[in-house]
């Protein structure tokens, strides 16, 4: 493993103008409408937004796991120099887990109940074996690697011989993390990895992800709507709304000085110890993707709406310090 310092600077993931639509009987729903994202090795990005804002679609699109009636309609997902959107299906099979790994939301349901944990982990390695090349691994070696992975997520190596039902929710989620790091991917996408777990287990799972990420130097995208978890875990926060990135900021700036009115409302809605009994919900409802309002999608709920917001969609602006905001309140400076 090279030193983490130098790895920090290397870009491992670039998402350019990613577009995904779902074709329904009622029309076309643009779930992702031109999303750009860049991530360096060792970086942790939080992707937040309400349900229906496109967070999970974003994860699935990066894994190329969008199923009909959904379709990736354009854009690039470049991991480690390879555009995942253009490669063949076979190449994509190999790329999953070895370049980009996915930790799904309900870990309880993603493990096969009738196959031992170890066999499922070995499967993952076997599927990526290429007999023609020299890096072929023996079964014994594979088993050793799997057990190491289990130990790195704080599970005993005898979990290897167990079945999913013998493990608690938090343990199953950590098995999923162990599988995701088996082939040392460059990018790990964790889609609400702790939403079904209680706070103590949640903390343990998040700290596990943090540690294994450090070990293999991968970039992590954490998807969720829990801003508290984001504050604890990530370096950068991207706020999504109706399929677009509204703001992308460093986590400290996001929590202390959010720029986009939606991000501001989101931060204001958070409970803390000082303002007991004060609830600041965001008025209005998340827009239906089938009937997006014209202009900026947030304008019907925005407290600072202007005439132009209703007519024309703002473009992303880069503010000093590298923050990206998509709002007319922050005009692009020449």
């Amino acid at each position, binding site marked *: 493993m090279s030193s983490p310092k130098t790895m920090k600077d290397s870009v491992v993931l670039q998402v350019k103008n990613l577009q995904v639509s779902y074709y329904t009987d009622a029309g076309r729903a643009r779930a992702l409408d031109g999303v750009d994202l860049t991530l360096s090795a060792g970086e942790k990005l939080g992707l937040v937004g309400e349900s229906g804002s496109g967070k999970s679609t974003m994860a699935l699109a990066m894994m190329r796991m969008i199923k009909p009636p959904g379709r990736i309609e354009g854009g690039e997902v470049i991991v480690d120099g390879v555009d995942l959107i253009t490669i063949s299906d076979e190449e994509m099979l190999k790329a999953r887990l070895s370049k980009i790994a996915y930790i799904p939301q309900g870990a309880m349901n993603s493990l096969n109940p009738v196959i031992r944990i170890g066999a499922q982990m070995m499967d993952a390695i076997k599927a990526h074996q290429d007999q023609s090349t020299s890096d072929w691994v023996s079964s014994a070696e594979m088993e050793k690697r799997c057990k190491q992975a289990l130990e790195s997520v704080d599970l005993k190596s005898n979990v290897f011989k167990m079945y999913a039902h013998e493990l608690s929710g938090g343990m199953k989620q950590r098995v999923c993390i162990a599988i995701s790091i088996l082939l040392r991917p460059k990018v790990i996408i964790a889609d609400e990895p702790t939403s079904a777990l209680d*706070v103590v287990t*949640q903390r343990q799972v998040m*700290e596990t992800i943090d540690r294994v990420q450090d070990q293999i130097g991968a970039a992590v995208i954490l998807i969720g709507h829990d*801003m508290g978890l984001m504050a*604890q875990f990530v370096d950068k926060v991207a706020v999504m709304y109706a399929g677009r990135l509204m703001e992308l900021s460093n986590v400290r700036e996001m929590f202390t000085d959010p720029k986009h009115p939606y991000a501001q409302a989101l931060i204001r809605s958070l*409970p803390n110890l000082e303002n007991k*009994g004060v609830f600041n*919900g965001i008025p209005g409802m998340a827009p239906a993707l089938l009937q997006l309002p014209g202009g900026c999608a947030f304008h019907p709920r925005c407290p600072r709406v202007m005439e132009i917001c209703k007519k024309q969609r703002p473009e992303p602006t880069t503010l000093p310090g590298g923050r990206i905001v998509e709002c007319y309140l922050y005009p692009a400076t020449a």
Partner: protein
Amino acid sequence: MANLLELKNVSKVYSRGLLSRVSTTALNNVSLTLDSQQPTVMTVAGESGSGKTTLAMLLLGFIAPTSGQILYKGQDIHTLRGEDRMMFRREVQAVFQDPFAVFNPFYTVDHLLSVPIQRFKLAKSKSEARDKMVEALTAVGLRPGDVLGRFPHQLSGGQRQRINVARALMLRPKLLVADEPVSMVDASLRANILETLGRLQKDYGVSIIYITHDLTTAYHVAKSIVVLYRGSVMEAGDVDTVIKSPQHPYTRLLIESIPWPDINRRWGKTEIKTKERKLGGYSLTGDEENVLQAMIKAKEMELGDNSVGCRFSARCPFVMDKCSQDPPLFQLNDHQAASCYLHEGNSVIAPERLSELLPV
């Protein structure tokens, strides 16, 4: 003063196995009282497996306690028959965790709301029924025009959960049992639902038992809190006192694990520790963070049913010999009690009298 609800030394044991009985104590000698004159919001908190949902099921009369009694207005809820039973069914309402699973997808919201109206004969005419629906929906912050006539799948999770609250509200309940009502709802909508619950308590005089693992929301809606761990009360008291100055090692662990949406309060960072010292947490020996990590890790080691002694002793870094005996509740101040021998110097309070400490 009449008691609305009274739990008297309630225990619930689940047994399985035909030849060798294996039993799990889901709730161990819990006593609580809610006053009928002063509606309040009480939180029951704990991690998964702490007995929170068992408590909700018991309160709603879905299951019977193994020992002890649950009294509603002085009557055991399992002996209620006929009209009394209908009154109980009407006055004690529930809001469940999953707003996606509780609706029949084939019926519109109108139908779903009209079922309780018919069942309990709340309205004499159709127009009166409709007025009641509109009133209840408005009270929970929904525009009736937005939801009436729609099917559940056309509504968002937050809307559905508020319809649940509206449905409960139509029946003018005295007690609402809310079992994790916001855990499956978007964070941005949580505030709205909690606000609705808070308003119900104030405007309609409904007592609420708010069951959750999320201490942040508990802090915001509740007046008092009872922390459960594996069926036993670990700590109870005024919500401000307990959350700002937890005295039981388990409560401390829970509170330390909350992902605070505060950038200056990251897990395991020094800020937390200094803040806690300021709040008067008891002093720890050695590195606090290591102690905490030990508690987190020890979770998997606890096996079997340690039905005698402190339930938390398997994970507790302060475990002593006497922890193999059930610790009584020690009263720490006017509004706080903890079941832990670390506080042995304080006076013991009988579990039945715990409610006296809880503010309303």
